[in-house]
């Protein structure tokens, strides 16, 4: 069920992305649609890394098993093409990997570190929060590690259990000095990852591993960047605004389609960058619809949905016609056997859409 829906989403996105390009985007992506090959999200990431290494001789890719292609095969072929001194395996030591990356970046390099699963980023938490995020600030701009990009696959895969399923993005959204970016589809992943690598700030880039193989769409072959901190309305509507990111958008899209059958018109926004996030786009949408629903896989309490909700209530209090709805993971560890109960599924979202619209 999830398979077909995400596939559909990947394809649907291809059209909605290019529709938007045709109508509004100012030339950053010159697309000849029919000539672009279809890629899955994993291959799109791989392409982005090839381009990043190719276009900047001072860029490096490293992490556990990456020179063999990595557990998800995202780094396949890089070591062969760019050599062992630019694409290399590290020992199993996340804290060391990120700290090393900070030092490498501080010398003016682009350090692209892979953490094998987002669940294993916690040993590196201190390096990210205390070293990477504050280096520029506390040195009065003498030093920075802006060339650092940390890639980590996140999220549910259907049966990953406690330590292969987590969505830790909110922890990092509490840290001024780093950016957090999450793509929803192959073409987005490629453009956003290249932007992250070239952005002069340290960035944590979470990749929706559920979509590595499932999401397939046309991806422009050339080097392109998608803007950070710019949300995108991927579906226009008038009755309620839905905000999400990453793999969850495909679930939300399905709920939007079902709601449409019930005569509810939903506007769906991909936030893409979680910090610093694009409040204006979300605000403008909520001013139009008067209602907001946020959905993410991470537990509801303290999730990034809480921040969005608070900000929008501050900005749109008088315009809101119903309480902001949050359909998120439950406040439990990510479970092994109860994943469907835990997850913010389509039906939960649909119920919340209805009750918010009928409030």
């Amino acid at each position, binding site marked *: 069920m999830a398979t077909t829906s995400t596939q559909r989403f990947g394809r649907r996105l291809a059209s909605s992305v290019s529709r938007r390009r045709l109508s509004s985007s100012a030339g950053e992506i010159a697309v000849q649609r029919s000539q672009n090959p279809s890629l899955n999200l994993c291959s799109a990431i791989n392409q982005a890394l090839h381009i990043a290494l190719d276009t900047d001789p001072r860029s490096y890719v490293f992490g*556990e*098993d990456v020179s*063999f292609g990595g*557990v998800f095969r995202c780094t396949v072929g890089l070591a062969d093409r760019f050599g062992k001194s630019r694409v290399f*395996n*590290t*020992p*199993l*030591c996340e*804290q*060391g990997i990120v700290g090393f990356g900070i030092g490498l970046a501080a010398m003016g390099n682009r350090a692209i570190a892979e953490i094998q699963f987002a*669940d*294993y980023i*916690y*040993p590196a938490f201190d390096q990210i929060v205390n070293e990477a995020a504050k280096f520029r600030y506390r040195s009065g701009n003498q030093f920075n590690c802006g060339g650092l990009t940390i890639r980590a696959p996140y999220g549910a895969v259907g*049966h*990953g*259990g*406690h*330590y*292969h399923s987590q969505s830790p993005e909110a922890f990092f959204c509490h840290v001024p000095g780093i950016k957090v970016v999450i793509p929803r589809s192959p073409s987005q992943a490629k453009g956003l990852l290249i932007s992250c690598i070239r952005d002069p700030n340290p960035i944590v880039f979470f990749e929706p591993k559920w979509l590595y193989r499932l999401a397939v769409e046309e991806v422009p072959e050339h080097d392109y960047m998608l803007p950070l901190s710019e949300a995108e309305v991927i579906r226009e509507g008038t009755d309620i605004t839905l905000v999400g990111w990453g793999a969850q958008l495909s679930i939300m899209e399905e709920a939007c389609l079902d709601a449409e059958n019930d005569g509810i018109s939903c506007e769906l926004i991909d936030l893409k960058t979680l910090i610093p996030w694009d409040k204006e786009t979300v605000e403008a949408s909520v001013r139009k619809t008067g209602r907001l629903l946020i959905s993410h896989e991470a537990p*509801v*309490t303290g999730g990034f949905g809480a921040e969005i909700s608070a900000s929008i209530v501050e900005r749109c209090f008088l315009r809101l016609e119903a309480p902001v709805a949050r*359909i*998120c993971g*439950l*406040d*439990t*560890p990510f*479970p*092994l*056997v*109860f994943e469907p*109960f*835990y997850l913010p599924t389509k039906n*939960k979202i649909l*119920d919340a859409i209805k009750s918010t619209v009928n409030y």
Partner: protein
Amino acid sequence: MALSRAASSTPHANLLKPLAAAISSSSSFFRRSISTDTTPITVETSVPFTAHRCEAPSRTVETTGQELVGFFRLMALMRRAEIAADSLYKAKLIRGFCHLYDGQEAVAIGMEAAITKKDCIITAYRDHCTFLGRGGTLLEVFSELMGRQAGCSKGKGGSMHFYRKEAGFYGGHGIVGAQIPLGVGLAFAQKYNKDESVSFALYGDGAANQGQLFEALNMAALWDLPAILVCENNHYGMGTAEWRAAKSPSYYKRGDYVPGLKVDGMDALAVKQACKFAKEHALKNGPIILEMDTYRYHGHSMSDPGSTYRTRDEISGVRQERDPIERIRKLLLSLDLATEKELKDIEKEVRKEVDEAIAQAKESPMPDPSELFTNVYVKGYGVESFGPDRKEVRAVLP
């Protein structure tokens, strides 16, 4: 190779006694049945121990016919259980991540033979056989693997999270290296309680590169804790060969100021000897590292065929020359403590036991959905969920 030495060249006289007894009754028809003999015999380990900052223990290990048969049986059971888990995973009856231990059985077996259930063991995610070694049942294993109520963690943990509190088995940890300092904490409590027991903290060669190991070592040494750090060196951390990841793959020496011992981890008797030695050492002098030279036959986890980063020859070479079960089989045969047929019968028995446990585990229900919310906090002392979809969370006080 070492076996012939074991059977012939051991100087102790007590080896000769059972051998002589066996030989004197060796007419195959009248041969006594499989050994339950508890007369001590001595066997020499396959290779010498290599020591770092300590005096290596003797290579001559005391054992009995009964113990060896027990080793054979339990290792055959472990092997069979892991192979069955492989099939269950492929049939999608086991979900989540699953890491198998076949090849490494002698470590679990030999360690148990040297210690008691008052001693603690803590390990990583490759935990099925360590759990069986601690006295866990096959039903608990397969139920947990399939996420059923009868599992050792009530079906809530899965493959990586086996625990057995009553036998001092602290599990079952998913984050590489995280269990090592926990083991040191266990050892501190043991020392404080003066109960003359020790903690074994197991970790892999990959995990040996995590900073946590060195933090744990320092604390254990600083406070002279009865902590035994066991590096199960199966020579690969996922697809990475030890030498690609470690400047010095002599893991027994990497504690620097902490003594260490390198052990043939494919030889259950060597493991037993080393663990006995380590326990005595740790109670008297504080921590020690045991590097178990071992091998995993399966890939790292079920998604790894295990053949892309090592040769098939390497795997079959280990199977042929160092297999821990075959070693005991040969020893039993050469000491005339069992016949080929008796050992085959044992293997048949364990196969049946495994099949029965799987059938029984399949009957065990899945946990009740309300279990999703239990054990997050102590019942009554934390938050509870209410409402449709249980998404509303309230703090409750007892």
